[in-house]
């Protein structure tokens, strides 16, 4: 083979390769990746729904627009074993406190519409009992009302107390039940655990059903403060104001 032939064969190969490269890049456009927190937390939204609006299965709750301090506390609770869900714990385990707070702040700041309200059917006496517990509590059993802490509009109170509306009845019963048997805990003093211990299964079912039957108000954001002091001492309020500790 002459030198010229070798060169021309080589340049033919080179142009073929270039052509192949061009075809490959035309077929496979590289993924569009933004340097944003939204892109980083795609790991959350497969279960918690697009932008954390909740999934349709009624199990994974909405996280968008919840008080950021509440979300941060829950991330710490999962990481530190006060809440138990292996997939969630394993997922966030390698992340720093700073990053968990950033993730909580991101979802907490989202202001997205709620889906249309799903009607809940329950006997009238159950709903009546639920309304009683949620709005007025039961003084005879030292049960404060839900609204005393979660806000009169039940949309939560910044930074650490979550809203109670827009959640599926299964989720509400599941959480209160988990508290009852010690599977869900919060920072001590665990006020919610103390309250749930005073509730019977009927109370839990009634309160959850009435809450799930209420539509989310147009103003769905958490209140900025409570009009009065908390009726019971709650560790979560302290937990959220603690400075970030390096792990």
């Amino acid at each position: 083979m002459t030198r010229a032939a070798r060169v021309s064969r080589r340049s033919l190969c080179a142009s073929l390769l270039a052509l192949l490269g061009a075809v490959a890049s035309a077929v496979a456009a590289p993924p569009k990746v933004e340097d944003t927190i939204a892109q980083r937390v795609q790991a959350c939204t497969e279960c918690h729904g697009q932008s954390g609006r909740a999934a349709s299965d009624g199990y994974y709750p909405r996280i968008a627009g919840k008080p950021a301090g509440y979300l941060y506390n829950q991330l710490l609770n999962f990481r530190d074993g006060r809440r138990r869900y292996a997939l969630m714990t394993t997922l966030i385990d390698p992340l720093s406190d700073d990053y968990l707070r950033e993730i909580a702040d991101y979802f907490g700041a989202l202001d997205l519409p709620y889906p249309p309200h799903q009607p809940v059917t329950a006997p009238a006496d159950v709903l009546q009992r639920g309304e009683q517990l949620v709005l007025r509590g039961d003084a005879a059993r030292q049960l404060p009302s839900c609204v005393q802490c979660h806000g009169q509009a039940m949309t939560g109170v910044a930074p650490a107390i979550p809203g109670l509306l827009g959640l599926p009845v299964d989720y509400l019963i599941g959480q209160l039940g988990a508290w009852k048997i010690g599977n869900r805990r919060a920072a001590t003093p665990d006020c919610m655990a103390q309250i749930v211990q005073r509730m019977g299964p009927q109370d839990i079912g009634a309160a959850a059903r009435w809450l799930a039957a209420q539509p989310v108000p147009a103003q769905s954001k958490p209140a900025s403060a409570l009009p009065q002091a908390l009726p019971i001492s709650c560790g979560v309020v302290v937990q959220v104001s603690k400075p970030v500790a390096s792990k």
Partner: protein
Amino acid sequence: MKRIIVALAVFGVLLVAVVVVAVLNFRDEDSVAPVEPESAARTAQLVARGEYIARAGDCRACHTARGGEAYAGGRGIATPFGTLFTSNITPDKRTGIGEWTPGHFWRALHNGRSRDGRLLYPAFPYPNYTRITREDSDALFAYLQSVPPVEQPNTPHALGFPYNTQVSLAVWRALYFRPARHEVDAARSAEWNRGAYLVQSLGHCNACHASRNALGATSGTLDLSGGLILMQNWYAPALTVPGEGGVADWDAQEIVTFLKTGVTPNAWVKGPMAEVVRDSTQYMTDADLHAMASYLKSPPRADEGERQTQVPDPAFLARGAKLYNDHCAKCHGDAGEGVPLIYPKLAGSRAVAMDPPANLVRMVLGGGFSPSTPGNPRPYGMPPFATVLSDDDISAVVTHIRTAWGNEGAMVSARDVYRYRGGLQQ
């Protein structure tokens, strides 16, 4: 008469066995002085050195329960023999190691015996820690005596018979444990020797990166030939095989970056190794990481096993390709090209094609983040698909990933996926 002889013979053999086991259990053991001179005073410098050694040994990861006080123990270590609970190593006098002396601590590391003389279970990796130097042991002890004491009684191990007896542990130790000291290889550089020390003793790398026999023993601290981590169902790849976790061809700096930040253009740390980077290696000095790199680049290359060449059914592959496009391509790209330092490249990835396929399946099941480190503080994450995709779906999509774009991995069955699911709860 004959019966008596037989009985005597049996008795004799048993006696010899007991003596042999006992002797083997007390090899290379110094007597522990009841009160030690205060010469090894707890200087700030010694404590600081001990803290660094605690990081390099990753003591805290096991000796701290989830959400518990640091070093107060209580973390359950699941094994095929039952669950072992780590002990309180804070200086609390009643429930911790406040009454220990440096001599007791050295005996625990070097000989695997507790202050009260009990034999310790090798889930505490003393088959590795036996090589720790006495100086490092004393520094580590000084540090542990300086952490806040926590009163927290130890949780009894939950082991079945016979694993719950000291006798069975003594037999195990006679078979598989021999106290050793770190030996310097004069033919190698000081850096390589430092790396060997860190990898074999403090780092206890082969506790995961080697296979274990039916009684849970590895073949020694030099063995880095890879192994499925018991109960966790993650595969710690062979560090000797280029197609697995071998780094002989890597630039030393890339190994250092991997251990320091958890991510390089070619590799992402996930699973149990993410915990190691999170709690241990990210805190190590560049000099020590370079030393580990120097050692890890040196082990003899081992051959890869014969690859299985079962050709998957085209319909199965097509289903996998569709699932890939629906769930994976958005981040990993249509051709598995990934995004540098953000989403792993799947085309040509050895982690993807490796056998067993545990890690790929576990990633799809549980998703995950790389650890937050100063070099990668806000990692991008992958969602879990355990609740979204069935075992059949996952087997199809991982088989597609393992065979597309020039990858030469073997088919993964739904049964494999089901098996690895078991690790999700650990």
